[in-house]
């Protein structure tokens, strides 16, 4: 089976700064693929290029055979995107956020309403249905972002740091959801700093640092290779990316 997503020699320069320096990866159908790296490694930049929100400086990404350069619209119909930065619509309530967002995908109102209500229940947002976004806690906002990402029944789910800033309960709930969706065969790209999270959820992962891939494989393989099977993925991560602070 051909991979769902293929990135080849993907590059992004912001003026002088090279944020993504020619990376290659493939994501297979139904797998949860991790993109790990310290702050400023280029994870969000990669995600933005994949979601057609940022033009590439070089290379290409394809989703289901469509290229971001040639058919961004076609790709965007297939993706569900949960961004790192909160961008829910502050002018609308929780429910209306989902309804308005579904319109962007040409989903008819009756169907959108059904899906929105189902997602609101699934993500335990029913108490907040009519509340404005500013009334939600950080955890609820993340949950709503995740619900919003699923409203168009995406083929591929993109989660950019879905659990950052969440308490352990909310984090576990998001993990549960990701696992559940994997059971249903959804292909997922997940970026995170929580190595524990990657170890738990990801079938395969790449570690990037300063825009380059420094290692890739299954969590088990990486622990075997670098620590002879002893220790955690976090130790591998620190060994590969060093202990100094990033993006300062």
């Amino acid at each position, binding site marked *: 089976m051909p991979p769902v997503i293929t990135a080849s020699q993907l590059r992004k320069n*912001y003026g002088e700064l090279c944020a993504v320096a020619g990376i290659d990866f493939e994501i297979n159908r139904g797998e949860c693929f991790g993109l790990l790296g310290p702050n400023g490694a280029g994870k969000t930049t990669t995600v933005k290029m994949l*979601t*057609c*929100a*940022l*033009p590439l400086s070089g290379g290409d990404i394809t989703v289901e055979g469509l290229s971001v350069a040639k058919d*961004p*619209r076609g790709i*965007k*119909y297939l*993706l569900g*995107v949960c*961004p790192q*930065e*909160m*961008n*829910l*619509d*502050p*002018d*609308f309530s929780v429910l*209306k956020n989902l309804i*308005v*967002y579904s*319109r*962007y*995908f*040409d989903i008819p109102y009756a169907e959108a309403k059904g899906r929105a209500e189902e997602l609101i229940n699934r993500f335990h947002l029913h108490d907040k249905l009519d509340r404005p976004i500013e009334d939600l806690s950080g955890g609820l906002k993340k949950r709503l972002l995740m619900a919003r990402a699923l409203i*168009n029944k995406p083929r591929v789910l993109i989660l950019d740091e879905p659990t950052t800033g969440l308490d352990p309960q909310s984090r576990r709930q998001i993990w549960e959801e990701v696992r559940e969706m994997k059971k249903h065969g959804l292909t997922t790209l997940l970026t995170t700093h929580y190595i524990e999270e990657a170890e738990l959820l990801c079938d395969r992962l790449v570690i990037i640092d300063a825009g380059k891939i420094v290692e890739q494989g299954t969590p088990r393989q990486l622990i075997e290779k670098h620590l002879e099977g002893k220790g955690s993925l976090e130790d591998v991560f620190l060994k590969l990316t060093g202990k100094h602070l990033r993006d300062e």
Partner: protein
Amino acid sequence: MNEARILRNISYRAWHMWRRNIDVSLVTWKTNVVPPLLEPVLYILAFGVGLGAYVQKISFDGRAYDYLTFLAPGMIAVGVMFHSIFETMYGAFIRLRYQKTFDAVITTPLSAEDILAGEILSGATKGLFAGTAILLIVTLFGLASYPSSLVILPLAALAGLMFASFGLLFAATAPYIDNLNLPIFLFINPMFLFSGTFFPLDGMPAWIRLAANILPLTHLVNITRAAAFGRLHAALLWDLLYIVVLTATMAYIAIRKMKTRLIK
């Protein structure tokens, strides 16, 4: 980034963005509906009734009109301008910079061009709404003649597109929200005062008349006034042509410029 590409990237999905902005206006409808209706009443009281008592008849196009009658069509044009230009100038700036609305929409099937065309459409809708509301008030005061005044409605929609495009361009070029004071000071206020809104341009020095004819509002005022007075004539097609050409040009420039801020 060529012209063909920008045009080709605009689709029916622009209406989804339009609908989003209209929905916001409907949520806060009291602040969106009442001012366009109330403002012209204030103007009529202050300028028409108050100031008008001291102003003799104004001669325009070979006839004498009392001041209130002269002023009324100008207020319609000004209302269209303010409501459409501010919707994109401040509204789109806030959605871009503070609310991150466009960041969310750009990962859905809408293209940057769809989003921005939708912004211009919703700006124009606000202008059309304000123009219609003011025309209604003016009609109630018996200051508009029919059927020629009906021309004002499609004209307000067109001019709304033009001013919304200007507003979007200003939003696209301002680094900070305070920078938007500059186009207000240099462009909007001079237009408000010197487009034949409050007094005929005939008596002004030649250079002011020339400058006024570059300002887009002047041409809107010309047609609106002729329509309200029931005195439309063929030469006004030049004013219309000016508005059409400027609308197309500004919409293109504004979308092109704003696109570079939306997808960096």
